[in-house]
């Protein structure tokens, strides 16, 4: 796979191809598998993504600790907010839904990780539903998202323990923004700007889950991560260009991750996890988990 987004964008431009095509061809070459087989694997991922969204929107799930659950359904059915009934609101509900399923030990697609698994399916399937986009183009979008994620894995990190939440929901926002920008007709260069615009908005984001559980704030951070992706897509498709190239934004994310104190890297030692309420909830809930034997 590519080690820079710039080289992938250049390849797409030279060969007059989409980034998804370039990604699928590179994967086929690297792994020695036919493109059809890779598309089938992505199609299966899409089925699981949709299943998790559907399951989460019902609203009857509670996480292992009981800390999260039911909020996806609230947003899904609400008529109160200024965006109620809009694709924006729908994307938020979908992101919460996937992450609530994840917290309840349901089946999801880690994309790129389980902790950041809500952003990509929410943005892609939400916008595809709003714009009547068919599954083949959604599969293309997943390939583009995979390419972006692979570049982040090469240049920075996709692990909250290594790079904080900027490496999980932040990377997911970049992947979703770039993939959706292509899906909605953006050029390869616009995809690059979308990635940069999304990731600049999540730089420095810490990983501070209560009790170390992938629950709080993870569920909500997937929703806000999806919102950042939507903002980036809106700007990139309007022709907004971000002056720092995506690869350099990604490098910055990696650099910040390395400098980040260990308290902010999935250890529950800092951030929201270390607040008085965070500590109290974690204590109560971990006791709950041990007692219920799960």
């Amino acid at each position: 796979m590519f080690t820079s987004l710039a080289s992938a964008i250049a390849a797409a431009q030279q060969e007059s191809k989409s980034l998804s095509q370039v990604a699928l061809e590179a994967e086929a070459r690297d792994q020695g598998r036919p493109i059809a087989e890779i598309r089938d694997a992505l199609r299966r991922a899409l089925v699981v993504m949709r299943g998790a969204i559907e399951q989460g929107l019902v609203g009857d799930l509670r996480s292992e600790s009981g800390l999260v659950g039911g909020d996806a359904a609230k947003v899904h059915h609400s008529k109160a907010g200024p965006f109620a009934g809009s694709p924006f609101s729908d994307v938020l509900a979908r992101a919460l839904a996937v992450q609530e399923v994840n917290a309840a030990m349901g089946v999801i697609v880690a994309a790129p990780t389980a902790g950041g698994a809500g952003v990509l399916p929410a943005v892609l399937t939400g916008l595809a539903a709003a714009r009547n986009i068919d599954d083949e183009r959604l599969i293309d979008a997943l390939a583009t998202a995979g390419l972006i994620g692979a570049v982040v894995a090469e240049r920075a990190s996709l692990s909250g323990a290594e790079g904080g939440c900027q490496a999980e929901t932040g990377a997911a926002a970049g992947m979703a923004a770039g993939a959706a920008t292509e899906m909605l007709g953006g050029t390869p260069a616009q995809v690059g700007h979308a990635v940069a615009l999304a990731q600049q908005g999540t730089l420095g984001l810490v990983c501070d889950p209560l009790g170390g559980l992938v629950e709080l704030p993870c569920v909500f951070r997937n929703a806000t991560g999806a919102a950042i992706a939507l903002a980036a897509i809106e700007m990139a498709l309007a022709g907004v260009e971000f002056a720092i190239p995506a690869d350099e934004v990604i490098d910055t994310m990696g650099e910040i991750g390395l400098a980040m104190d260990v308290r902010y890297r999935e250890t529950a030692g800092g951030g929201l996890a270390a607040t008085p309420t965070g500590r109290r909830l974690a204590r109560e809930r971990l006791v709950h988990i041990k007692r219920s034997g799960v």
Partner: protein
Amino acid sequence: MRPVRLTRHPSRFHRAFDLVSLLDIIGPVMVGPSSSHTAGACRLGLLARNLVGGTPERAHVELHGSFARTSEGHGTDKAIAGGLMGFRPDDERIRTALDIAEREGLAYTFEKTTLGEDNDVHPNTVRITVERADRTHVMRGSSLGAGRVVVSEIDGFPVEVHGNHHTIVLVAEDVKGSVARIAGILADDSINIATLRLTRKHRGGDAFMVIEVDDPPGEEVRDHIRALPWVRWTHRLDKVSS
């Protein structure tokens, strides 16, 4: 295949020559909540299971670092037990794996421990001792994020097995021509070698071979390798990635 340069991110735990696959990024399909603490843990359990050729009768699991600190809430214990019983990361039985283990005759113990200095050991590391019939093997491995894993030690030998390929590991006496002989057995069975690494503790000492192959080697391949007088033991570690 084109050469891949070293990653710019100076993470000691990042494999230098691993081609990142799209399907590693958009995947795995897995039971939540954590790709490192649940899916990766399950894969490490699956790899350890291979060492004894089936569900172990006894397993002792030593958890280090973040694995030790946050295992309950992530179901790390359930995921490892599930892997030891052959469940894959997307198997919903992982949720109740500890109960199933009792029924299946897998006696497990978990211990929170320190397997080394923080700078030397990946934060998500586990050492698993598995026993079945009269065989006992020890494996040490780490979960690297996004469900990717590495086995770093088997029975005291340093290895590097990622589970992205079917892998044959073997310990042999350090005899001349051993690599050619093994390669010949694989070639006879039309099995293509992806990578081959040879390590030994000292000259003339036991040699440890890690061979990643493209196709699953059959029973007869293992039997042929086992029949070689200078091979002490061999295992097949099945591919655990999607």
